[in-house]
Each structure stands twice: as C-alpha cells, then as structure tokens.
C-alpha cells in the first residue's frame, strides 16, 4: 500500500507535513521548547473549534474570531499544565519536555484505548504514521474526571525523537 503522493500533507496522508506544522501558529519553535515543558499544537486546518483557548488558564492559546482561525500559541505564557490536551476534540495537542534528562525527553499525549499501560511499563513509542520508533517508559497515566474519559499518558523517549513520538503502540486486549 504505497502512499507516496505529490505535495503530501494532512489532506492526502492524514498526517500534517513538516512544512504544514512549521507554518502553523500553534507549533512552537525548537528554541521555545528548550525553555521548559510546553505544549505543541498540531492544528493545521480551519476547523470551527476553540476549546483550547477557553480552557487555557494562562491565555497562552488564542483563537479569537472567527473560531476557524488556527490557534496561536504563545510559548512564553505556557506553563505546561496540559489542560488543553484532553479537551482538544481533534487530539492534536501534545506536551513536550525536552529537558527531562540528559538524553531523554518526555511526550504527553491523549490516549483513548484499552488496556491502559501502567506507570513504569516499557512500551513502544510510535510516530505520526503509527510506526514504532523507540522504547518508551511510561511516567504518568492521568485520567481525572475532568478529562472526561480521555487519558493523558506521559512517556520518556530519546531526546531526538521528542518531535516524532506522538503516541504509543496500542496494547493487546485481554480476551
């Protein structure tokens, strides 16, 4: 199943291209990431939607009017609380801490499958195409009531994959 296409992007592959991400006002620069854990918004289409703006306690995400505008992210305002991760109906918001350890970064992402991994589990980190790219250690599995059944999982991954890993390989269901 060959998926090569001219001008690949979210409309043809379902995955935002590097160009699309970098052109998006929600996608922070690498330099911004070095200052501490912040969120990364991978929202590249004019969908009528703004819960990320409403929920951010710091005003670090601004959509404005009309609500189809892409979220503009102000990394300097973001304290990395991650409230926007589970609220995003498109599951397009992640948190990245590239300073987690010498060679490790953490990535937090929404996860809505069963079974859930447990803290300290070693699982496989997957990139945007679902391909396993590394081992990932589960650091946190958060599922408070206010997340409305969405779980936010934080994993530690090799630092150079901080902007690649966006989820984990789904775990086998027990029958």
């Amino acid at each position, binding site marked *: *199943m060959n*998926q090569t*296409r001219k001008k690949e992007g*979210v*409309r*043809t*592959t*379902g*995955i*935002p291209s590097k160009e699309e991400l970098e052109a998006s006002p929600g996608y922070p620069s690498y330099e911004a990431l070095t200052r501490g854990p912040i969120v990364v918004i*991978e*929202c*590249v*289409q*004019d*969908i*009528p*939607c*703004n*819960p990320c703006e*409403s*929920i951010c306690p710091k005003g670090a995400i601004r959509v404005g009017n*009309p*609500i*189809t505008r892409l979220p503009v992210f102000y990394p300097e305002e973001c304290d990395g609380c991650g409230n926007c991760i589970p*609220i*995003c*109906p*498109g*599951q*397009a918001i992640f948190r990245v801490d590239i300073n987690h350890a010498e060679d490790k970064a953490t990535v937090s992402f929404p996860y*809505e*499958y*069963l079974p859930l991994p447990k803290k300290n589990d070693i699982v496989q980190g*997957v*990139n*945007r*195409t*679902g*391909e396993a790219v590394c081992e990932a250690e589960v650091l946190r599995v958060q599922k408070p009531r206010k997340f*409305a*059944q*969405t779980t936010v999982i934080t994993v530690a991954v090799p630092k150079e994959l901080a902007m690649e890993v*966006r*989820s984990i*390989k*789904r775990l086998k*269901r027990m029958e």
Partner: protein
Amino acid sequence: MGKTEIAVVGGGAAGMTAAIESARAGAQVTIIDENEQPGGQLFKQIHKFFGSGVHRAGTRGVQIGRDLLREAEEAGVQTRLNTVVYGIFPDKRLGLICGDHTEELASEIIILATGANENALSFPGWTLPGVMGAGATQTLININRVLPGRRILMVGAGNVGLIVSYQLLQAGADVIAVIEGLSYIGGYGVHASKIRRAGVPILTGFTVLRAEGKESVERAVIAQVDEKWQPISGSEEVLEVETICLAVGLSPLSELAWMAGCRFSFLPALGGWVPAHDENMQCNLPGIYVAGDLAGIEEASTAMEEGRLAGLAAAESLGYLPPEEGRKRKEELRNRLAALRIGSFGEGRATAKKKLMRAMCEK
C-alpha cells in the same frame, strides 16, 4: 384525535433541542420518535464535539444526549416513543402507528427533525452479510456493544468514515485500511491523524471493486482509480477483512417533508434534496419547520443549533415570546450557527444554506 401545540417528529439532536426551546418558552410540545429511546444518533457519538463553549465543544455526544434528555424532562416535553409517524395530512394532522393501532395527532405546528439515511454504495458482493453502513457499525459497537467483525475495511474518508474507524479501534477491532475514491481526505485532518497514529493506512484514490465470500464477507478487492473514477487495471489488492463499512455520505430523510408538500432544492453540499426554509427554519408551508440533517446534512452541533432556532421560532409564532426577546435570541442562535459554517469545511454548506433560503422567495 389527540392534540398538541407543537409536534416534533424525531427525537434526535435537532428534535430534542427544538422541543426543549419550545417547551421552555411555554408551549405544549410532543416529541414523536419511533425508537425505544430518544436521543437519535447522539448516544453513539462517543467522541468530543468541535465548536466553542456555546456548542458544548470538548463534550462527548453521549454526554450531551444525556443532558438533553434531562433538560427535555425538566422543560415538560411529552415524549411518545415506539411511535411511527406514517403520514402528514392536511391541517397538520399526523398519522401515528403505535404498536398494533393507529392514532391521529392534531397540531398547530409541526417541526420535522427526521434526520438522515446513510448512502449505500453498490459493487459486486455489496449485499453480502458483513457489508454495512458505517453508522450501522457505530450503533452496533457503541450502543449494542457488539463487534460485527474483527478485521474491517472502511470505505470513505469523510468525517464519518474517520470517526467510526477510530471508534472501531476503541472497540477492539482492527481497521485494515480506510479507502477513499477522491484524491484527498474529506474529513478533518485531526481525525485522520488519530487513526494514522494508531497505524491505520488511509488510501486515497482507491475504491472497492468487490466483496468476496460464500455466505458473508471474507475479503475485499480494492483498486486504485483514475481521475474519472475508473479502476486502474493491475492496481488491485486483496484485503482479508470480514466487515466492509460504507461511509459514503448521508441523505436527508425527507419523505414526510415531501408528503407535507414542502418545496425542495437539490443541493449536493447539503446531501441532495433538501426542503427550502427561511431563517426561522420554517418551510414554504406556514407552521411546518425543519431542523437538523433533514434541513441539510451537517454536524450534530449544527443540528442542535438549528433545533433550538426552530423551537424558539415556533414558540414565538404561537405568542410565547415577547417579540424583542424572540428577535434577540434568534439572532444569537443564527450567529452560533454561522460560526459553525465558516472556513474551508463550512463555506460550501453556508452557501448552500443561503440558496435554500433564496428558494423560499421563488414562486
């Protein structure tokens, strides 16, 4: 013959909100729904909705459904379940089938919120057990809590195809591929990204050639198509699947509106033949309103705003709202609707809706 001030046909997203608004304004409202439970398709919408706070963005459809049931009860809406509306007759009389007998219900206003039908796609083998609507699959997994198959092929990469694929994964199935005849993904990119991260390929420019199997689907043969949607020979691939889900669009469920004598316009952006209506959701026939997918295929969020608008306008026309308040609240709802019909995913529908309203002025 029974009587009600406002009869709402269909207790889904649009019908419930219409009934709630009318009843809150003071009107006597009866929802008629053929199912055991009201709520329509909301209870299988287990994903979080888009929009903004007023549209309940970030809340799951199933939760919104629960809230609407409670609100309807609090507002004093009467609900007649397991009741089929078999016809609309002159003087806004509804013919009802309730179990083994028929009844008539006289009303001053009818709000039609009958929803939509899934489109089918015919190809050799499409009648085999295992080929089903994507919405049907969604009902089975999220309402009935059964999996129709382990290995799934999804046909269509609009929002329904993408969302149901995701929900199939959540239910424990494997989606072998999503195929789409167009050269691009029609649904929201974020829905596509979700399933791509889960390892599901999305093949654009592909169609299903045939379903094979003795008594039910055992495999699907897919192929690439050219610009004229003709299969390219040599591009066939065989997928071992036991279920083929069709997510190839919806059509307004419009029989009752036709029967009532509503004027229709053909607007592909809204799913085909759609009853013309004005900015109060009223049709060319005074006292007949439409809302939700019947008035044009859109999202549940728009259906709910349209329902509110229709319900409010209906109550207002019966004198239940001071004109100034009615005007203000309807304007607010129209703005909320407009907010959902902008951008590259919404413009087409906004334009089509304008045409629909212009059709009201034609002879």
